[in-house]
């Protein structure tokens, strides 16, 4: 396997790890709010949170391209700060985050919903604030759902293609991920390199699914 193949795999794993690490706190917050609170417009929030799950990733990518491009206020603000997102590794991470977020948030939410609320009530009688209770009781008891969600999100990030190619492109050595690499190698007639990437993708996917299934077994 060539150095180029390894470099692409390494880059993809790094980006996916970073995306997972950044997604997790957001997904935990969203999962907790959706599992434990009711508020007006909750159904709408639930729908928006799940949207990237149903939307074609390419469409998500187009939205991101617009959002971080020079014509949107967000893009302009970032531009003023000298931060470039589109067609950089940052766009790779953002695309991965957006597509994996719904999966992680759902898994966290169901993990939290399985925690008996009476533990939380009891912790309150002992003087703990809601945030303390979340940190010391709810999250530890929901840890399997959270870990499973993180693995699921990481796996989804590893295979991300549609949104990535729209917003980050396929710049060799800069934004090229496994999935994007396979596509461009085939397009440019480098079948052998594509097969190398395929093998690495399969190994990574196997590892992630194996670990996640083992976690579910332990839970059951």
């Amino acid at each position: 396997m060539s150095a180029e193949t390894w470099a692409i795999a390494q880059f993809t794993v790094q980006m996916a790890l970073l995306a997972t690490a950044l997604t997790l706190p957001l997904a935990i917050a969203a999962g907790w709010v959706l599992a434990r609170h009711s508020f007006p417009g909750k159904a709408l929030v639930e729908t928006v949170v799940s949207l990237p799950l149903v939307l074609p990733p390419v469409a998500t990518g187009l939205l991101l391209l617009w959002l971080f491009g020079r014509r949107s206020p967000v893009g302009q603000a970032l531009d003023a700060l000298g931060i470039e997102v589109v067609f950089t590794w940052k766009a790779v991470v953002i695309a991965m985050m957006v597509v994996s977020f719904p999966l992680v948030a759902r898994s966290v939410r169901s993990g939290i919903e399985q925690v008996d609320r009476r533990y939380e009530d009891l912790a309150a009688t002992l003087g703990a604030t809601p945030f303390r209770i979340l940190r010391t009781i709810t999250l530890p008891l929901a840890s399997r759902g959270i870990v499973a969600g993180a693995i699921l999100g990481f796996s989804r990030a590893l295979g991300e293609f549609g949104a990535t190619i729209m917003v980050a492109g396929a710049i060799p050595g800069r934004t090229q991920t496994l999935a994007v690499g396979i596509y461009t190698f085939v397009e440019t007639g480098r079948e052998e390199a594509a097969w190398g990437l395929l093998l690495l993708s399969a190994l990574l996917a196997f590892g992630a699914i194996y670990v996640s299934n083992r976690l579910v077994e332990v839970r059951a």
Partner: protein
Amino acid sequence: MIALTIDVTLRQQAFELHVRESSAVEVLGVFGPSGSGKTSLLEAIAGIRTPDAGEVRVGDRVLFSSASRINLPARERHIGYVPQDALLFPNLDVAGNIDYGVRHSRRALPGMPQLRSTLIEILDLGPLLVRRVQKLSGGEKQRVAIARALMTQPAVLLLDEPLAGVDRARRDRILPYVLRIRRDLHVPLVYVTHDEAELNAIADRVLHLEGGRVVGPAAAP
């Protein structure tokens, strides 16, 4: 001895709980069959459930008052609560459960090391401290849950059928622990049970609940 004012209306699916009681007691017994509203009453005092109307006062502290729109959150009520199934935190060991309130409450709690060793002695918890809570028997769980509640120095301790999950032989071994709390720590108790014999042993006033209503102040034994 503490003055306890409970005047609670709480609508439930099956019935409406209505309790009106004001007494200065060391141990207030609440007696009644399953589904009579005993647990709901304790949860209303602890701040886990919000009554639809009424007032809850401990001494001169108002914990809940629908008239003055006061509803202190559970964490500010200083009420110790020991539910029927103990509800020890499964992610912590016995020591972690006992110390939970001290570690995570915002309240400054003076005299902690001494109280801790007193509780460990009174409730005979020494051999349990490093155990996992899943490995404890029903009676052991109850003792740990009592210690966990008392470590926060509550104004009142609510005990929900502490002997329900425990067989006869062990029952006679746990009751003395409860009596020692009353005698040595002077913590007022609200003691819920469906067993009259227990109340005879411990309570100095008894509320008899049925279908959410007080059917008799059941003369003090």
